[in-house]
């Protein structure tokens, strides 16, 4: 039996597209006439694209069949980290152009890792909950859009967009969102470990 590859073929295009789209967002943000808007444009694109990629990674990992839950956790974390490593040259350029501090960059990457992990867990768990592919598509991407944009409209914490912007600019307002995602990530990991043991 051949060893399972770390990076599956089905993920090649999503990963490459993720970096290409982020590169495009970076160039657009630098060219945007109003630099105030340009500052957050790249970060907004980054977190939305990362959410989409994480959902796809989670679902693809679920499709590869049952695995020990610890291994699934490690793979989801590793694949999330890999996406961040691929996009990190662009993040460093954005740092230079927005004069963000190094701690802000490190904290932002940490938050992105947690954010990606949470959405990859959602993508991983979704096929068990929603069987229909069409409904699953709506639930995945509709859920992501709601979670990112709805809190913004009501001024509530929890939107990845607002959290990443705040952490990047060094505002304390980002902590509530970061704590929320950390909590969700921890609960999700526990859920995965427990449910994995029950089924195995």
């Amino acid at each position, binding site marked *: 039996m051949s060893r399972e590859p770390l990076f599956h073929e089905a993920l*090649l295009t999503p990963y490459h597209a993720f970096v*290409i789209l982020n*590169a495009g967002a970076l160039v657009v943000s630098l060219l945007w006439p109003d630099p105030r808007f340009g500052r957050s444009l790249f970060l907004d694109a980054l977190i939305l694209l990362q959410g989409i990629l994480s959902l796809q990674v989670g679902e693809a990992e679920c499709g590869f069949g049952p695995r020990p839950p610890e291994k699934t956790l490690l793979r989801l974390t590793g694949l999330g980290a890999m996406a961040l*490593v691929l996009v*990190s040259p662009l993040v*460093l*350029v954005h740092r230079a152009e927005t*004069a963000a*501090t190094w701690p802000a960059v490190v904290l932002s990457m940490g938050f992105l890792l947690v954010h990606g992990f949470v959405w990859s867990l959602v993508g991983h768990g979704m096929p068990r909950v929603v069987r229909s592919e069409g409904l699953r598509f709506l639930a995945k991407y509709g859920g992501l859009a709601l979670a990112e944009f709805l809190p913004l409209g009501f001024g509530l914490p929890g939107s990845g967009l607002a959290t990443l912007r705040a952490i990047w600019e060094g505002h304390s307002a980002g902590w509530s969102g970061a704590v929320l995602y950390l909590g969700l990530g921890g609960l999700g990991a526990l859920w995965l470990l427990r449910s994995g043991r029950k089924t195995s």
Partner: protein
Amino acid sequence: MILLAFLLGVSGAALEVGLEVGWAGRPVLSVVNPLWLTLSNPSPQPFSGEVHIRGTAGSPWRGEAVRTAVIPVFLGAWGRTVWVLPWSIYQGMTTIQVRVFSRGTEVFAREFSLQVEALRLPGKIGPPGFWSGIVISPADFPQDPLLLWPFAELEISGPLAPEGKEVIRAWQAFLGGRSALGPTGVASIQAEPFRQRLSLLRPVPPIWSILIPGIILYLVALGPGLGRMVRGRSGLLCAVVLAFLGLSLFYSLSRESAEQLSSIAIRISSKSVQRFYLEICGLISWRLGEIALPGWWHELLPHRGWRGLDLRWEYGPDGWTTVVPLQPGIPRVLLRVVPEEARVMGGEPVPPPPWLWETLDLPWGEALLRRLPTGPREAEAFWIELP
């Protein structure tokens, strides 16, 4: 409205603190008002400490901007001192908090409430009489034209020293005042066009000649790298990512030294005013930080988004310093009346750019605008000479 408070300090030392804001206790919104702070030490022990005056403008919805003045105080036995500060009153600033510290311990704290007038007031300089507006005694006449800003017009019905007339002329020329002494210069200042101009300033543009080829090369090189990763060979991908991480780190670090603060300075003088000129300063930074400007500056706040637009005035051996915290990409527009003779430093006459035209409501047909050589961190500098 006169507000007085008395409180016993710690260790038996008594301290009397009085605060009055606005002419006749009627502070006016969105302008600089006089704030009188009276400190008395009725004890035989000298008092040494620091006074913190704090006002919060705005609301949780609009955003809150904090104004703080820090004054070091030394009072001898039974000593008394009066400070007159040019205090800016904004929407939502309904109280002013005064706290006194001595040797790190708070010895006095009190909040004084304000009842703010929406419109600038009519005033009169001269003897009291039948007059519905505020009457200023010539003896109380301020040395700083900013303190006359709460008045829309002034009637002069008594003798006034030449220095007093100069203060009134400066108030008319720069702060939209009206009196019989001459014409009005700058009728009003609309900070929004200036703020928009500032927000378009990028200190140093990106180095496109490195960025675009670098990004394209990275995206192209990622294709084969990811392809090999699928087959379990991660060497090429690691090499590509490490190479471009190194390049972007070098790019990022090389941009550290780039100037992160830009400013636009506008100085306005008038031929009718010898001793004062108006200085408007616009600041924008790409880095979180703060800048200390010499003198006492007043800020023209935007319509909304006041969160973090704080100012701190500190009194030191060289007089007042205004400390402006800067948030990335958020413009700050500040002004002050400088008590010095205007010295025009050359510069070529130019027509006013549209944003400047929209910012300043003044008789442009009679004014002469010069573009000045820029100083460090200055993107543009202008001098306007009014008739």
